[in-house]
């Protein structure tokens, strides 16, 4: 009987789970390879790698400021120095910060910001999404309405309002972004669970007394990996873009080596011809965000061209 064979597979869940995960992971790498065939995705990927290298090897590129390397080194005796002045390849800010330092260590700040935010939001999103999906009924309704409420406020505005309440600090920007970004992951996971729940095959597993977490590990998680990875890739760029915007508006921690902060510091100098601070730092935000977007878009294209639809 055909069903026995299937149930037999369920009886050895670890095996099946691993196999499913392995398949998914293999599929992911295939997808990656396929996406990179698209030249734009490849460009995105290359820029991402360059940024990651810059962030990882920042201490080798420029000696870190002490005691806190994420603070700009300030030389108040040479403020607003143009690019090429000795010791300041890309010039300095109005508080004497070296722009090159800000660019290089800003990459590290951006990496820190995006990884922390994406990690937090994926965890929260997966947790809320699974609750809603598995508990179903009223819980699902309530949690999904909550998600809808969160989606009713445009991202930047929401994050801006939160950050404004919390005050200017790097930690607060992380918090604000985390509060805003988790909802998409909750939707992805919940959708996947609903999908799996409707699957007859899982009913069979349920009959055999399979635990929810097993279903989750075995069916939901492997199926969700790809959309979550794509969303996370896009968010890696998006987080930095919105974070920089918040910094620009004035919610950055004082003296932090962060690109948005640099643009905001350099902005008022533009009229006096001091273009370098805002231009270089802004270009970094743009490139970072563009690279992750190209990469994410390429992945999405290969996976499911329709997934942009809600």
């Amino acid at each position, binding site marked *: 009987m055909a069903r026995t064979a299937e149930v037999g597979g369920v009886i050895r869940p670890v095996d099946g789970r691993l196999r499913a995960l392995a398949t998914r992971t293999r599929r992911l790498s295939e997808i990656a390879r396929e996406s990179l065939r698209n030249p734009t995705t490849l460009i995105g990927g290359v820029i991402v790698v360059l940024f990651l290298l810059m962030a990882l090897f920042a201490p080798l590129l420029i000696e870190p400021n002490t005691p806190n390397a994420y603070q700009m080194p300030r030389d108040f*005796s040479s403020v607003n120095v143009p690019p090429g002045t000795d010791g300041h390849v890309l010039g300095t800010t109005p508080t004497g910060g070296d722009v090159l330092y800000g660019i290089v260590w800003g990459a590290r700040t951006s990496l820190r910001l995006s990884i922390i935010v994406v990690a937090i939001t994926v965890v929260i999103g997966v947790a809320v999404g699974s609750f809603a999906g598995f508990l179903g009924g009223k819980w699902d309704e309530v949690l999904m309405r909550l998600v809808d409420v969160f989606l009713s406020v445009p991202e930047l505005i929401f994050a801006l309002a939160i950050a404004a309440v919390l005050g200017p600090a790097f930690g607060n920007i992380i918090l604000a972004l985390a509060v805003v970004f988790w909802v998409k992951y909750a939707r992805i996971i919940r959708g996947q669970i609903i999908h799996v729940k409707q699957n007859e095959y899982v009913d069979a597993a349920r009959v055999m007394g399979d635990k929810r977490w097993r279903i989750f590990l075995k069916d939901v998680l492997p199926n969700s990996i790809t959309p979550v990875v794509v969303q996370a890739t896009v968010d890696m760029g998006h987080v930095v873009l919105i974070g920089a915007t918040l910094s620009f508006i004035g919610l950055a921690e004082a*003296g932090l080596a962060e690109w948005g902060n640099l643009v905001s510091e350099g902005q008022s100098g533009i009229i006096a011809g001091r273009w370098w601070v805002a231009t270089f730092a802004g270009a970094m935000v743009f490139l970072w965000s563009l690279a992750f977007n190209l990469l994410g878009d390429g992945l999405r294209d290969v996976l499911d061209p329709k997934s942009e639809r809600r």
Partner: protein
Amino acid sequence: MGWVMGGSATRRKSVLARWALVAAALLLAAACDGAATDTEELGGEDAGGDVNNPGVFVHALDGEPTTLDPARAALGEYGEQAIIQVYEFLVDIGPDGPEPIPALASEVPTEENGLVSEDGLTYTFPIREGVTFHDGSELTAEVVKYSWDRAMEMNLPEGQASTLSDTIAETRAVDDFTFEVTLQQPNAAFVSSVVYSTPAAIVSMEAVESNGGVTADEPNEFMDGNMVGTGPHEFISWERNEQLNFEVFDDYWGEPATLDARWQNVPEESAIVLGLRAGDYDAIQFQPTFAPELEDAEGVVLDTGGLLLEPFQLAFNLNIPEGALPSGDTIPTDFFHDRRIRQAFNFAFDYDAFIDGILGGLGEPATYIPPGVLGYDPDAPVYSQDLEQAEQLFRDAGVWDEGFSVSVLVEDNPAFEPIGLILKDSIEALNPEFRINVRTVSESQFDEAHGASPFEYAMWIKNADPFVDPHYYLSTYQHPEGEWGERLGFANGYENPDEIAELIDAGFATTDVAEREAIYQELLPMLYEDPMWIYPAQEVNAQAYREWVDGFVYNPLWKTLRWRFYDKG
């Protein structure tokens, strides 16, 4: 003697969208380049004069009032700068000096002219006849009494009614044109600091009564958004966040103004500066850090002569509540009780970085009594950076090896934040175990924390309020029982709190100038030895206006420009 100077408002509101409007700035920059054509288009000036916006005096400020009601406007609030153009007081201060001159009172009361009683408690003001308000109503002694009583009765927390209610025992309208005041106790500064204070402005009784009247503790919405006074300019309209419009009041009792006026709200500093360069504005209020942009500007007059009487201050909290400090702070609550630590901070701070780097040279080292104020002593000791001494003092205090971490609360502002950063860099460079966390917050968050008692941070950065009499600086900022002395617990730190308190009190008890100076000369070194603040610097007071402005006069006591005096073309 609370007179205030213009910079205060600048400082307070300059945070306001400091990003906004580079754009406007850029436009104006473009306008500068193509000046000839642009001015023609924009100004539509006549062929003869080279004047933009003829007939209107355009004054660009980096913010706008939160209220226009003299009973509600706070000290240093933008509203005060509009109120002084439209409302008048019983006395005024002329362009030339600090002495009060007659305004709505036809005579300034003195003991000589018999209008001040011998005990110094009763002041009689003869009220000028034939003065009409902008709404057509007549000025009488009753209206004067009404105006003063109104402010005291409303007693709005943000307003300055206490200036009146703390000194006045009774007000009386003796007859239609005689107004009498009885004080609680003699006050030599009554006319200059109380009669000429914002809540003492004379408002139209008719306007108030027909628009909600007076209710204790309740703001009057009409008066918040309108002004009905007797002054040379009449309030016309307020386009929120854009501009306020004023016109010449034709029935003015005195020398009428020649130009209508416009208050242009331009939140972005650089835009203000460029607007002046382009000739769109006739005069501006601006951050002195932008002065270099104006130095060579054609057609612009720049005056950086004086100093603002608002030294920057960095406070030590000697009254830290248990468990209140931010989690990262490692200092004990009595950290700043140790005089050596306060001295060490004073020696560590890089004053040159602030004055030469951030202020671009437009500042001077500051001390406990600013220059120009009675008691200022050029020879009084002033801190300058001395890292060896700082290290020695930290070692002596026993915090060198262990180190510390402390947060300083700063308002998000282009001048305050760098002070925090300089402090951070100065202290952290001394010793890797030392940590300063600069906590930048929005203006309202700062005000909230700053207004909380007890204050929940170890340090804060702000600028002092400006006063004309040294006593107010000393009592507000140095006296162990003064406003800040009490809140920050100076009594816990002063070696001799009683001696300092006695000296400060003694300096106010006498009216003899020489005697006061002698007292302050004794006091200043004591404050230097036992510092409760760091004074990073004092900014210059910069004025800039177009060359075509005729009759430019300015008295720091006005708090702002007085449009009535200016003409152009």
